[in-house]
């Protein structure tokens, strides 16, 4: 095989290319280890994870799990930002690397990870490239190198396959079950060499690929020189005679893309030079600022289709295949059939139309396609095609796509792995357990627990609430508040207790490990995340919301910094809606700050932001339709705030001045206009007569103005719905308005009118209807009967609903 390097005075080295998450690779690796019997197995993977190998191969550890690498750049070695970095290296039950490590343990072989430590990989990568890519989740897997090149694109066109994954499945996965190891690996090596030749060298430099390969080569050389014949002491020569005849064998397992690169380095004969790379600690990233942990991982997250990982797609499907390997002759066929049946079952449960005959047809389709495409067995793509053609009746669109969604979910798989009890966990998890104990939380229960906290009267309860809030802020799926004052939405301020529900699950530690780079305790991590969040905040609104969160979390150390930032942003921010959000968040905080026992001067912030918002108000007259609700909200909120006490007297005048100015604006939005008239009426500044006059202005105006009456009413009823019951004039006008518009115009205005009447309670609408009937000399009963509605209309409505739901699902 091309990948075996022999040096007579040294050890024998075999380089095997792999693809992450490939069952066939796993199988082939296993066979190769059996037959070649290496002494040592070296695996691609940051070497700072070597301490975790023991736990990874422990029999109580279940995949999927991931190695979680993190680095806090305290010394600013990577950038001035001194940022936090993290990445994942996920393993599935059938990951070849895991298989190799397990085999090594079983056979008492040595094993090691040989890639650069995580921090050094970061240091070797260019900004925004490789593991420095600006993504939510970075994966150490770099299989994308195998699939994103110009060569594979042409190859797929030539072979009539739709993408690299289908190509891979056909030629490497399914064939991998039958082919001899050396044939299979040499095909793979050829493919990888071609992929590499078609990748620009700059990009290999940029994402740190070349530096990593140099390091891995150095590690291999180090191992070879330590164990090879030359490395042995003369006097032990005789004892080692057997070993001399039977050379030390090193099996190296790396992502296929790297194999040719490493091979080239090892073949160049400059071993000493390469090995010296290991002595040069110049670019070294401090060890103490990096950490590695194992964490349970989910199938969903491991599935390449979910965006961040770059292993193989359809993790659940290949899991099934893997389980069948060795058990039966045709594991692919079996997996396809199983999934056709299980997807069929679920589809039937959801919609009920699917028959056994459909399943038979689908199975025939999968097999027929397999044959037509010259695949030894049908695979993932035949499965997808079979469901598409046999389970979906009629046109394929968002409304009919359910069976495909069901199938894809099943192909992704579900569930999480778990770690053996020996697994080391980051300090933040210990902190979590301690705190739960301190608060007497039942975290061993599998059902959801509830607890009610008197946050203003019990210090202990307040502390517990702070803990819950911190957990929520950290994005862990542990606790949720179901009742209680809501500072962010300005709701339920009269509640004095919070009700929380909480439940422990395997996802909680996973989520905590995920944020462990930010601190050793829950509180510390929350505080550090607040700092991060604050750096990116440019709007007063979001910053004020953050302030309320810090407040709830009781992070007193952070309060001042956030407070100052909010203050700054109130001055800078000129976005009306952002300011309105700030006012909303601050209002409730101000009211409750006494109860929460805060010393911050929220009222000053509030006053400043109210002033700013009033100042911005006049420019809002000509808003767009979609902004009407939030703008009306803000106008009403300002009315309530400025009417509250004597210290707002000045602002109150400014507010009404602003309203005045808006009303004089020719281009004022009719809805906003109605809303303002309602306020003027409610505050006693204008009489009902004046409001009616304004309304008449629209009614008797040009056609365009007339049609605006509907939205005017919407605004008016939002702030002063009682007007409709007084004197009856407004109702008459509404009636008059209906008389004036044409049917098609009416249909167009209907949404606005509907909105206008949502502000009334059912009792009120009843009363209005009666009054309206009276206008036409009819009684209440006369309007209760309507023409029947055709069943087709309902059917159409249902279809429309399904379509909309499908759309939202997709989004």
């Amino acid at each position: 095989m091309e990948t075996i390097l022999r040096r007579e005075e040294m050890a024998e080295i075999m380089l095997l290319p792999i693809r992450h998450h490939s069952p066939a690779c796993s199988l082939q690796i296993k066979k190769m280890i059996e037959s070649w019997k290496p002494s040592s197995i070296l695996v691609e993977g940051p070497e700072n994870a070597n301490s975790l190998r023991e736990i990874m191969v422990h029999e109580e550890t279940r995949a999927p799990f991931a190695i979680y690498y993190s680095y806090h750049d305290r010394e600013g070695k990577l950038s001035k930002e001194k940022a936090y970095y993290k990445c994942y290296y996920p393993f599935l039950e059938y990951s070849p690397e895991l298989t190799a490590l397990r085999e090594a343990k079983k056979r008492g072989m040595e094993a090691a990870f040989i890639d650069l430590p995580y921090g050094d990989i970061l240091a070797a990568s260019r900004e925004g490239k490789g593991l420095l890519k600006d993504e939510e989740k970075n994966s150490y897997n770099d299989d994308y190198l195998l699939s994103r090149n110009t060569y594979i694109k042409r190859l797929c066109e030539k072979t009539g396959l739709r993408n690299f994954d289908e190509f891979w499945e056909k030629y490497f996965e399914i064939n991998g079950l039958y082919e001899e190891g050396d044939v299979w690996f040499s095909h793979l090596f050829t493919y990888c060499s071609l992929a590499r030749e078609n990748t620009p060298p700059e990009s290999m430099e940029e994402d740190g690929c070349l530096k990593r390969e140099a390091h891995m080569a150095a590690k291999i050389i180090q191992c070879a020189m330590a164990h090879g014949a030359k490395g042995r002491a003369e006097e032990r020569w005789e004892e080692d005679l057997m070993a001399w005849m039977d050379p030390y064998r090193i099996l190296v397992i790396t992502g296929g893309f790297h194999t040719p690169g490493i091979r080239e380095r090892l073949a160049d004969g400059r071993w000493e030079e390469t090995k010296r790379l290991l002595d040069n600690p110049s670019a070294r990233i401090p060890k103490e600022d990096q950490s590695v942990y194992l964490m349970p991982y989910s199938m969903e997250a491991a599935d390449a289709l979910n965006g961040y990982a770059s292993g193989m797609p359809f993790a659940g499907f290949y899991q099934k295949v893997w389980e069948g390997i060795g058990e039966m002759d045709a594991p692919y066929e079996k997996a396809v059939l199983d999934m056709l049946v299980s997807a069929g079952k679920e589809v039937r449960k959801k919609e009920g139309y699917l028959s056994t005959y459909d399943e038979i047809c689908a199975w025939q389709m999968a097999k027929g396609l397999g044959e037509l495409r010259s695949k030894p067995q049908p695979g993932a793509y035949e499965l997808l095609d079979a469901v598409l053609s046999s389970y979906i009746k009629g046109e394929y669109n968002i409304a009919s796509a359910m069976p495909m969604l069901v199938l894809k979910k099943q192909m992704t798989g579900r569930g999480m792995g778990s770690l053996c009890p020996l697994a080391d966990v980051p300090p933040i998890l210990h902190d979590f357990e301690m705190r739960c104990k301190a608060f007497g939380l039942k975290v061993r229960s599998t059902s959801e627990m509830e607890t009610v906290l008197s946050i203003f009267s019990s210090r202990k309860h307040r502390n517990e609430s702070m803990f819950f809030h911190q957990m929520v802020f950290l994005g862990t799926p542990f606790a949720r508040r179901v009742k209680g004052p809501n500072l962010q939405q300005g709701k339920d301020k009269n509640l004095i207790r919070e009700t929380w529900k909480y439940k422990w699950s395997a996802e909680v530690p996973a989520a905590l490990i995920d944020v462990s780079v930010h601190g050793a305790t829950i509180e510390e991590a929350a505080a550090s995340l607040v700092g991060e969040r604050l750096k990116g905040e440019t709007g007063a609104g979001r910053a004020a919301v953050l302030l309320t969160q810090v407040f709830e979390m009781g992070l007193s150390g952070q309060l001042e910094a956030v407070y100052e930032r909010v203050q700054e942003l109130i001055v800078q921010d000129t976005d009306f809606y952002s300011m309105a959000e700030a006012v909303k968040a601050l209002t409730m905080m101000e009211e409750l700050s006494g109860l929460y026992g805060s010393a911050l001067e929220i009222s000053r912030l509030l006053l400043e932001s109210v002033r700013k918002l009033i100042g911005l108000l006049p420019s809002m007259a000509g808003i767009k339709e979609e902004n009407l609700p939030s703008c009306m909200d803000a106008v009403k909120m300002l009315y309530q705030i400025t009417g509250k006490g004597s210290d707002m007297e000045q602002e109150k005048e400014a507010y009404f001045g602003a309203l005045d100015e808006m009303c004089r604006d020719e281009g004022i939005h009719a809805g906003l206009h109605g809303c303002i008239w309602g306020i003027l009426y409610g505050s006693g500044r204008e009489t009902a007569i004046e409001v009616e006059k304004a309304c008449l202005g629209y009614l008797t105006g040009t056609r365009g103005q007339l049609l605006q009456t509907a939205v005017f009413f919407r605004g008016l009823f939002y702030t002063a719905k009682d007007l409709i019951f007084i004197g009856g004039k407004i109702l008459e006008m509404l009636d008059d308005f209906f008389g004036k518009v044409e049917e098609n115009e009416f249909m167009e205005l209907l949404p606005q009118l509907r909105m206008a009447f949502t502000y009334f309670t059912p009792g009120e609408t009843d009363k209005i209807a009666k009054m309206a009937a009276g206008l036409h000399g009819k009684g209440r009963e006369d309007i209760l009967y309507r023409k029947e509605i055709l069943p087709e209309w309902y059917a159409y409505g249902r279809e429309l609903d399904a379509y909309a739901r499908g759309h939202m699902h997709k989004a």
Partner: protein
Amino acid sequence: MQESIKPPVEVKYKEELDALKSNDTGRCPENWRLSPKAVRAFILGSTQPIEYNGKEVRVEKKYYGNDALVERCIVTLAGNRGLMLVGEPGTAKTMLSELLSAAISGVSTNTIQGTAGTTEDMIKYSWNYALLLAKGPSREALVPAPLYIGMEKGILTRFEEITRTPAEIQDSLISVMSDKILNVPELGEQGFLFARPGFNVIGTANTRDKGVNEMSSALKRRFNFETVMPVREVAVEKQIILNEVNKLAKESNVHMKADEDVAELLASTYHELREGVSSYGHRIDKPAAVMSTAEAVSVYYQTMLTGYYYGEKRMSVDCLVQNLVGAVSKENKEDLGKVREYFNTVVKDKSGKEGGLWKQYYDARKWLK
């Protein structure tokens, strides 16, 4: 007249079909002329030319954009269910159905054309009344229609635009497709026609016709559906235009080759108007009419003919725009406004940045009236 100019697929591609047959080593489903793999090669092209009669025959790719769909169609037809191709007009449903029939059964003309006036007679059989009166009901007096013919010979029956026929007429297919037996009550004991292997039905339905005569769910169950989408990539659409236009030109003895750049221009226009977004990222209002590839081919070909006969064998961009106007404003006048808007934004920017043909195209906007 159109018919005589356009030969059926099995005639047009006789050589390819014969060559494939002579080299076919695959197993054929009963009564199929070619094996599934050879059918695939006929529609999707083969990488190597085939030796036939001492000649090298190239099998060209005829349907672009979705190989997997063609493969599913072939497997469906070898099974127990019919094949229903649904999609917007101009997505090559008819073309696919003809290609499949020609390759599988050797004929593409055993076809029912669905219209509001289609009756059961036109699907199953009718009678020769003179014979009927003279001899009474007998096989001789029976005039078979495409479904009967398909069953009797073991070949495919094509049903075009099935949703245009009244629902109760469509439903007369149900029993035949599930039991593979057609009963002719007038013939008594002899009146049972059992379908020979090889028989199946390919239907096409236009999704823009939807709601006209929605298929019953009982009928739907007898078919595997394939939704045919417009081509996704400009490069592919351009390739289709070039191929189709060159083929048309050859058939009509027009000695002129299609121009790559013009084809690309037209493909971009159709693609962008269909998707509602340009390659530069402009958002465009989509015309209500279908912007199909078939339409693009026809716009190109008309322009080419004009150029050939009246314009010194050159394509004129002015003429192209005139034909484009004719095509889009056929159904609805508002669409023309949208195309004008497209010229004023996208074409304008492209003319500035790319110049050349795009500039000529932009200058021809005066025809967008």
